[in-house]
């Protein structure tokens, strides 16, 4: 299942307590998954500013994965609820931003769900791979240079 090619590029914003630890568990269980995801560790999904996601697309990501503790299990009591609310709002703006909704995936993966982490990563990688590269923002930086 190993994909030699580094495309697509996927950025994952994960919380330290559940998903990051779940990914650690996938490692200790020696489960294999596709190597396209690059993880950015945050203390909590509540820390995720929707701008991070836009920024990732701007910088060339083909897909963005957001994952944290299951509702009710947040290490910080309620951070993931805030993340979920923001997600509901942000989700509606995607179309306006020219980003296909399917390039963004939101999931709950707990510290004990190493297998689920692998499944989520593989499924999302396949989905983004099928979509092909994200090109809408390719020229943003160039335009800025020309205009500026």
């Amino acid at each position: 299942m190993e994909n030699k090619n580094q495309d697509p590029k996927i950025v994952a914003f994960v919380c330290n307590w559940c998903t990051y630890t779940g990914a650690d568990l996938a490692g200790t269980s020696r489960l294999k998954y596709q190597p396209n995801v690059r993880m950015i560790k945050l203390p909590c999904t509540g820390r995720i500013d929707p701008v991070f996601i836009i920024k990732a697309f701007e910088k060339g990501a083909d897909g963005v994965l957001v994952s944290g503790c299951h509702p009710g299990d947040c290490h910080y009591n309620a951070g993931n609820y805030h993340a979920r609310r923001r997600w509901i709002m942000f989700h509606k703006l995607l179309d306006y931003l020219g980003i296909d909704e399917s390039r963004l995936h939101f999931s709950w993966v707990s510290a004990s769900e190493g297998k689920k982490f692998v499944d989520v990563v593989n499924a999302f990688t396949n989905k983004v791979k099928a979509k092909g590269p994200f090109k809408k923002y390719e020229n943003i930086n160039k335009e800025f240079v020309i205009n500026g």
Partner: protein
Amino acid sequence: MKIGVFICHCGENIGRTVDCARVSKAAGFFPNVVHSVDYKYMCSDPGQNIIKQAIKDLQLDGVVVGSCSPHMHEKTFRKAVADAGVNPFLCEIANLREHVSWVHDDMDVATDKAIDLVRFAVEKVKRNAPLKTIQVPVTKRTLVIGGGISGIQAALDVANAGYEVVLVEKEPSIGGHMSQLSETFPTLDCSQCILTPRMVEVYQHPKIKLLTYSEVEKVEGFIGNFKVTIRKKARKVDDTKCTGCGDCMQKCPIKKKALSEFDENLTTRSAIYVPFPQAVPNIPVIDTEVCTYFKNGKCSMCKKVCGRDAIFFEQEDQMLTEEIGAIIVATGYKLYTIDKKPKNSEIKGYGEYGYGKYKDVIDGLQFERIASASGPTSGEFKRPSDGKEPKKIVFIQCVGSRDESKGFSYCSKICCMYTAKHAMLYKHKVHDGEAYVFYMDIRSGGKMYDEFVRRAIEEDGVKYIRGRVSRIYEENGKYIVKGEDTLAGVPVEIDADMVVLATAMIAQPEASKLAQTIGIPYDKYGYFVEVHPKLRPVESSSGGIFLAGACHSPRDIPDSVAMASAAAAKAMVLFGSDMLEREPTIALVNENLCAGCFYCKKVCAYNAIEVKQIFDRQGNFVKEVAYVNSGLCQGCGTCNATCPSKSIELIGYTDEQIYAEIAALM
């Protein structure tokens, strides 16, 4: 900034799939990186010395270590860096083991990914600020949740060391499942005889505040500084007046309607009751579900006969708050009841064994009650249906355990031993009786454990049959047990008088709810999860909350007691100093930018945002801004994401740092 990069091979764990030399070479070309090496074991003493030496020789002021997960060795490396004189928060870890070498096979791909992760860490460390740990005071009081043997042991250990303990038990008495047991393996000493003195010790201990019939309602705060709200449920009996004489229970007209929880539904109890005669405290409780007074107000016999006027029908639940420094969770287990597949459950059930349908098909705890001298039959073996002495008993192990298709995939660990004990106890009393045990494997690791099982087989003549049972049905007052002897390769049929099922140990049904209340992780079965399975087995990932006994995983009495003592020791380590160091990754407000909208205050789960008034030099009021209470802030960063002007930032995870990481990705 001068950054050093250190890539660890972790023996072969990383080196096998990641070309560490290539990673360190590539890292050498990253901006600001002045030094980049790889080494076999970076966490070892010589490995740490490599880092320290490089810091000294090259005046490094930033370090990136490519190694195992930061959850494993971040502390180790930060300490090494600090020893060499660099602020520990200027050290970042790239997770090359759990997130790279262990999950990918292809060396090129893995090495590319490793280089990416190191690049992130370099970009992040460039923007890290030198931070100082925060000092907070410690409340030297322990809350123990659960009054079974684990909770009792933990409470006594902490209290004997001179610290105060609050012990909360949800049942009317402490003692837990151990108080129900007849005799304990492998010594066959009487369970109550060794337990009850401990229960009394808890009750009389000057340092222990015992709250029975109480539940933890809310936990606020953090390590060393918890504020715990406890619901003391209404006993309807004034515990300051009651002497435990028992007149009320004797006169209570309701004797048959309520099943005795302590006797596992084999007997009945009165509406006002203590669970068992040796209960601690020996103060009864009124079961308002069955009590006639609470149904129609007609009876108040107990109130009439009470010489101390202790019956208090109007009593209501009471809320108590306690200041606590450490919490020990010891909520124990339940036995899996298998009468029928519960609706909408993943557990498929064992309808074929007729549990719940046939009175003489019982579970392990019911057998304990029958075998117990204080039980419904005073320790004589009589079967529940007709009181006759069973001449043939079949024991079935692994009912629900090690059975992925119908029950749970884990091993309940204690059943091999207690089944051997049950068969032995039975043979000791019914000499002409026959005992059969159906087993999958015998797992009797433990001191004197295997010898015990051998004794059951060789000296007491218990017949062990390796195989599963497919069905049990009643025929002419006998229970026909159909199974298979897999060693002989033949089907077996035994006409038993009684069947005992060693049903799986499961987490308390409300364990996940409690875990959410106190903020600790739990696994898919509802068992609480430790930080590290080998090196930190009694700590939960939430600071200051420790685990003891079967709420963590199935375990027997000696294991539970050992774990309880370990948890107690961990709590005492915390109390060893007056101040506690906390990670400085908390939110900080830029008062110049802050417009005082206080959205941050609304989203903060810890009430850590306060309102601060700014005055100019003349003392004129200028504006109100947010202020972070560093003692309360836990560093989740929700405020940072919410702030419209980005004037509140989470140190260590600032927007600038995260944008730098994103940019470094591509």
